[in-house]
């Protein structure tokens, strides 16, 4: 697995359970089904959860304050439910780490970031074809966006507002 964020490859301080066991020295990521049980024994230590892309935001909302990370599983690159789920989690106030986990490819990196993900975790086979440089390069191909709230790049609306303001200022100077 390759983990990366805006800066590039990242050392994972979290770890999914392996055969149901935690990895020493790592913050565990437990499946949603095991979350309640884990919280009961965890004693306030940091914790992550792995969810499928059809989970309801309302189901996770009670845990927003306690979860350090939510990893949303992407069963395939073409299944975009995780993008909307990420947006929803952010809009409902989740401020912890949001991770996309699955076979996304580099062109989807800016979309994932724009939807509120902080990082993506991709299988080794994808990473072998698409090294970190590809993912970072993908971020800079489209540098502006029509979507004001969560665009891929600079907001075109903001750029247009700034242009109008500048025009008005120049106009005022000339008077």
């Amino acid at each position, binding site marked *: 697995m390759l983990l990366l964020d805006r800066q590039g490859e990242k050392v994972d301080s979290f770890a999914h359970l392996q055969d149901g066991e935690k990895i020493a020295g790592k913050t565990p990521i437990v499946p949603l089904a095991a979350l309640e049980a884990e919280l009961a024994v965890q004693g306030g230590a940091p914790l992550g959860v792995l969810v499928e892309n059809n989970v309801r935001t309302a189901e996770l909302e009670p845990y927003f304050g306690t979860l350090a990370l939510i990893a949303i599983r992407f069963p395939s690159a073409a299944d975009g439910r995780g993008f909307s789920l990420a947006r929803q989690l952010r809009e*409902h106030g989740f401020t912890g780490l949001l991770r996309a986990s699955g076979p996304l490819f580099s062109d989807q990196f800016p979309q994932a970031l724009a939807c509120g993900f902080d990082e993506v975790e991709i299988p080794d086979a994808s990473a072998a074809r698409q090294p970190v440089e590809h993912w970072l390069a993908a971020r800079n191909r489209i540098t*502006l966006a029509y979507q004001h709230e969560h665009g891929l790049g600079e907001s*075109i609306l903001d750029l247009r507002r700034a242009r109008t303001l500048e025009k008005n200022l120049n106009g005022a100077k000339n008077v």
Partner: protein
Amino acid sequence: MYRYDEFDERLVRERVAQFASQVERRLSGALTEEEFRPLRLKNGLYLQLHAYMLRIAVPYGTLHARQLRQLAHIADVYDRGYGHFTTRQNLQFNWPKLKDVPAILGLLADVEMHCIQTSGNCIRNVTADHFSGVAHDEFEDPRPIAELLRQWSSLHPEFEWLGRKFKIAVTGATQDRAVLKSHDVGVRIVRDPATQQVGYQILIGGGLGRTPMVGKVLREFLPREKLLSYLEAVLRVYNLEGRRDNKYKARIKILVHEIGIDAIRAKVEEEFAAIDSPRNDVDPQEFARIAAFFAPPAYESLPDVSRKLEQAQAADAELARFVEHNLFRHKQRGYTALTISLKPIGQAPGDATSHQMRVIADLAEKYSFDEARVTHMQNIVLPHVRLDDVPEIFAVLRAEGLGTPNVGLVTDILACPGLDYCALATARSIPVAQALAEHFADPAKQKEIGDFSIKISGCINACGHHHIGNIGILGLEKKGAESYQITIGGDPGENYALGELLGPGLPAELVPEAIDRVVAVYLSQREPGESFIEAYRRLGLAPFKAAFKEIADAVA
């Protein structure tokens, strides 16, 4: 017309470079074919039966002369000298080479055009009434919101990987010429009877394809500043809740059908309540900036009637026919919206040669304030023509094989490319359309039949809108042979209806005769002034079915 500013331009240029990089990375193996395919489709590039096909977005069908000339240039240099106008007001080239696509995209960007989201599981090209801004029955010009939606939906990071494609249409007129009820979302500009405020009625869940569904009202009235946040809620609900297990059940119409309009409304309203905030409202200054591009052109003050045209008509029966069928009543006195039929008898519906594109470009520039429109009926409109100029325009059109006076008549046939081009098709469409046009070619006969629509699809995906043709023809493959199922009573407009099956499928050579029989029932039983579809509604299916059976029995 809308014109790009530096930001629109930069975005399209960056998208071209991005696509070039995607092609490179496919060739290097960095992207698998499975990864590359949706990227290629989102840029309008299909792999068809014989070659690649490139679909170019014509936003809400609007073109100016430079754009038309550039399309003609591309047709000459990179294709076979013609293009095909589609039922989504777009243009398709059927023979481009993969290696040339980045160059073509560059040429398109030079004239403020692109192929963004003309295919793939994303929000497609927004379509609109082709008489937007000029129709006499229009309440408000829908092009500003069409452009607003084009921008909002372009490269939307959340909605690039939907369960299936998503089509939006808009209108601001009384008569629905944009087929709103066949769209995933239809937007109609309305006035709230209570407050007199202008806003939108939102329809949802319409569609054709293998499971035709009629769009339903999701919101009776949406305040105008809420349009984008509300649609964001609709798309998010669809993206999260739409089926992903079966691509044939993945459109929003199936979700609406399965959970019901009330349940989907509750979900959308809940999502909207979470998104809705002044910060997410449509920016009024930005909307005004866009709307300003669609201000009416500098019309002259003219009388209602053109003596010049009247005299010319009296002297030329063909011109008179053209005036009768190809002109549409304009808002502005002394002007008309003139439709150029791309359905000359015996030709492939919707095709135009590069030469014809240049002719239309010249006419648009000279006579129509540099504007042309593509219709979902695969014709071209010159939207602002002085009645006085119609004789001159017609003379040019006639000389170029573009003067066919058949708009809205039996030979104005809508047809998909079918098995002649398309990899999905199960039967040919174009030869059937050609045979029918030849069969009904006599202008007197066409006039006698009056308003009549034939729509032909070469497979169940219904690109040829067969469900909503007065006569719908669906080409299927049956035991290795092409077989055509015929429906009757479809209507795309205000009295929206899906057609009903007339009987068993027929071989292509019997289709004209079968339709002849159906037409004969109408001609013998109609009341004065009654159109075919009106007579059908009064008479019901039975008499038409009986007449059809005589032909069908002959085959059986």
